[in-house]
Every structure is written in structure tokens, then in C-alpha cells.
């Protein structure tokens, strides 16, 4: 199955951390990646900028595009990155996600095919 693991974190958590803490983060990500390699496949991943650099486009009632500063929703936690992976089942996906740094909250979503759609 193909899953996307969404990473949420509290802004500022990582900023100004020392070398040792950064190494802990890197080790945790490496552990996740090794687990995925062992049980499935890494497809894609990215770390995102802080949400203060986000730009949101909404469609108002008349269908006009409204471009604003900031993320979808202001929350204490914000989306910080994702992994797109292939793993046999949800238990493996949970086991992998649990290896990521303890400061994260993680959301796992299966990737679905949209019936009838073919990419251009």
C-alpha cells in the first residue's frame, strides 16, 4: 500500500537547537528511512518551510481567487513535511512513523487512485 506520512510540529521547536539535538532528529529520520527501505520503498519526501512563509489561495462565494498571507488554518501545530512511502500495511506504516522524532505529531493517509483520472 502507498501511504503519505504527514509531519506536524510546533513552530520554533527545532530553531536554535544545538548540535546534539539536531543529531537526534537526523538519527530518527534515518531510522524511519531504514525501516521503510527494509519493509517497502521510499517514493518521495520533503521538509516544508515554516507556515509564516505560506501563501493561501481561497475561492470566495463568487468564485474569485483570494490570495492571502499564511497557511490554511492557524493551529498550534503546523505541517512541516511529508514522506510518501510504500509499505505492506498500516501496522508497518505506524511502526515506521513511530521512529520519527518525538516532537512530531504524525498523520498517516493511504494514497488513493482517482477513478477515471489519468494524469496529463
Amino acid at each position, binding site marked *: *500500500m502507498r*501511504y503519505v506520512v504527514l509531519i506536524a510540529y510546533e513552530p520554533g521547536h527545532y530553531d536554535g537547537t544545538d548540535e546534539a539535538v539536531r543529531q537526534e532528529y537526523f538519527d530518527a529520520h534515518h531510522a524511519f528511512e531504514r525501516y521503510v527501505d527494509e519493509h517497502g520503498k521510499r517514493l518521495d519526501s520533503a521538509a516544508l518551510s515554516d507556515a509564516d512563509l505560506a501563501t493561501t489561495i481561497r475561492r470566495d462565494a463568487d468564485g474569485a481567487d483570494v490570495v492571502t498571507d499564511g497557511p490554511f488554518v492557524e493551529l498550534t501545530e503546523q505541517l512541516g513535511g511529508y514522506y510518501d512511502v510504500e509499505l*505492506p*500495511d*498500516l*501496522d508497518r*506504516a*505506524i*511502526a515506521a512513523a513511530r521512529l520519527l522524532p518525538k516532537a512530531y505529531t504524525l498523520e*498517516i493517509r*493511504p494514497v*488513493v487512485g482517482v477513478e477515471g483520472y489519468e494524469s496529463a
Partner: protein
Amino acid sequence: MTAEADAALAAVVREQWGRLTSLLLAQFRRLDLVEDALGDAVESAARRWSRDGVPDNPPAWLHTAARRRVLDRLRAEAMAQRKVPLLVVEQSGREEAAVRVDTGDLVEDDLLRLVLMCTHPALDPAAASALALRLVLGVSTHDIARLFLVPEPTMAARLTRAKKKIVSVGIPFAVPSADVLPERLGAVAQTAYLAFTAGYAPGSGPDAVRTGLAGEAIRLVRVVLRLRPDEPVLVALLALMLLQHSRRDARVDEAGRIVLLPDQDRSRWHRDEVVEAVRLLRSPSLTGPITVQAAGYAVQARIAVEHATAPTAEATEWDRIVAHYDDLVALTPTPSARLARAVAVAEARGPHEGLAAMAGLDEELSHSHRLPAVRAELLTRAGDVEGADAAYALAIERCGNDAERALLRERRAALHDAPH
């Protein structure tokens, strides 16, 4: 003949439903088809067995009939070229097991896989317990709806949604790795206890049906405990459930009113269940290091044992109960545990000490009817009729259960009748 066939069918459904479901799931990986196919097989057994007699091997008969149904459906789908997502089934372990041991053990492993799948933490807890009753115990959707006090279509939709989530998100039909298994068995216990408490302490509605739910929850724990006999969390939970359940015939009178513990007819408690619970609590599996969850069940069970083994209400060893509550509050300092401790303190050391032990609970239990009900009772004992009356009024206002509200009204009325 018909009666014999009916009894045989009811027995095999009750005893073998989970095994048959798990066997068919492992074979066909189709959560959406297996349950219907088995239901159809039971229907046709109801007709055929009363006409032709009960077969020599009733579960095998049902398995064959259900298997045929699934194959029919698969053939129809192949014709229509439908593609349906399959349940993720753990393959490696199954093949090894098939080579290594006889089929009996293999089926037992599949039953554990089924229980773990139904109680997966990624499912909504209420849906998970309903699903476990349906797939593991074979309780009908109609009966599950009655037990959870929702309309049957609502329950059917809830079960369908849960099954759909299992397949779409890839919850596997598998036993997880050893490091995760204990927490997953903890989730099994939590699911069963959720169903049990829904039956034992009804929010509203009639009582007799709800006792049935508590009974089914116990059956679920027994099924899993047979597969994992020394699992501390299951041992402690079964003990706790048995002790609470043993009082079912004494807790409501003929008119449907709740009878409080001290007023219950102790001869109506189920002694065999108390004895079994006491034996479970002596199990060596509870002496080693255990999880907070298991310890919590064990301490609550030890409190219940004190009540269950006291010859009369007056002879209850309240000091020992307070000591157990101290343990419980140390383990899980929840407001309800602290309130229950305050009740025990009042019994052991008098109403004033009990009232003092309730300090600080009002904010945390601002919607509970139990808090003012307890306070009213203790104020009554302390001779403060006015304070008790006000507390009863608040408790009645907050209470959502018919039987409990009737009891509170009665107590409040008695306040003014009694000479003081």
C-alpha cells in the same frame, strides 16, 4: 427435530462464528463478502438441518456453505470485471505455521488476528467494540444495535464504515511484532471494557438488555484469554468484569429501581463468578511488572473483591478499600477515582472526612450527577438537611438515567420525612 436443529445451530454460531469468519477471511481476504456469506450459510442451515437432520460436523457444514457463497460472488464479480480491494493478510507467518503445526493452532492464530484487526486503535472505539461483537462473537447487527441503544440502520452503517476503513487503510489481518503486541492486547481490553461499561452503567434506558452487553463483553475477553492465557491485562480485566457482573441480579429490584450496594441481597450475587475472579487475581501473571492499564484493572478488581467477600455490608473492610483506592489514585489520578476514594474514606472515617476528601473535585466534575449525589448522601449523614437537599436538587438536574434519577428523588423525599 426442529428444536434440536435450532439448538445445534445456535450453539455452533455462538461457539464457532469467530473461527469461521477468520478462516474465510484468511482464505478470501474479502471482509465485505465473508460476513454476508456466513449469514446466508446460517440461514440455509436453519432450513436444511431441521429437514435433513444436524450434520456430523456442523462448523464444517457452515464453512463449506459459506465458502460456496463467496465463490459464487467472486465468479459473478469476475464476469462483471469488478476490481475490489482486498484485506491485507499476513502471509509469511501463516505459511510457516501451516507447515509447522496442525490446522487447529493455525485457526487459533487466525482468530487472534481477527480480534486484533477488529480492535485496531485506528478504528473508532465504539465501532471497534461493535465490530468485535459482530465478527468475533457472531452477535447479530440487530442485537448489537439494541445493546448499544441505536437504530439498526445506524449500527449497520457504523459496522460497514469500520469494515471499509480496515480494507482501505490497510489494517492487516495479522499478529503484530512482539514489541507492539502487548499494547495491542491493551487495546483489545479497552475495547471490551468499553462495551462492558456501556452495559453495566447505562446512561439511559432499560437494564435487562444492557446486562446482555456486559455478558458479551466478558465472552470477548474469555475468547482472547484462551488464546493468550497469561496476558496480565486480560487476566485483571476479566476479574474486574466478573466481580461487577456477579451483582447483576441484585442491583435492580422488581420495579426496575436501582438497589445500592449496601442494600443488595448478597445471596443473589453469583458466587461462582466471585470465586473465579479471586482465583484470577492470584494468577502469577499479575505479580511481575505489568502495565499501568493492567494494574488499574487489578486494583479496581481488588476493591470489588473486598465488597464481594464481605459477609454483610456492615462487615466491609473499609480501611483496606481506602488503601486500594490510594493505590488507584496513585496509578490513575482521575476525578472519578478520587470521588470513589472519598466515598470509601467516608465509610471508613465518617462523613466529614469524606466531604473533605472531595475538595477540588467540583471543577473537574462540573457535569457529573454523581458528585452532588455523593455529597448529598454525606451531608445527610452529617446532619446537614438543607445542604443535602440542595445537593440532591443539583444531582437530579444533571442525571440522565431514569432509574438513577428515580432513586435520587426517593432519597431527597426521605430527607424531609425522616425525624431530625
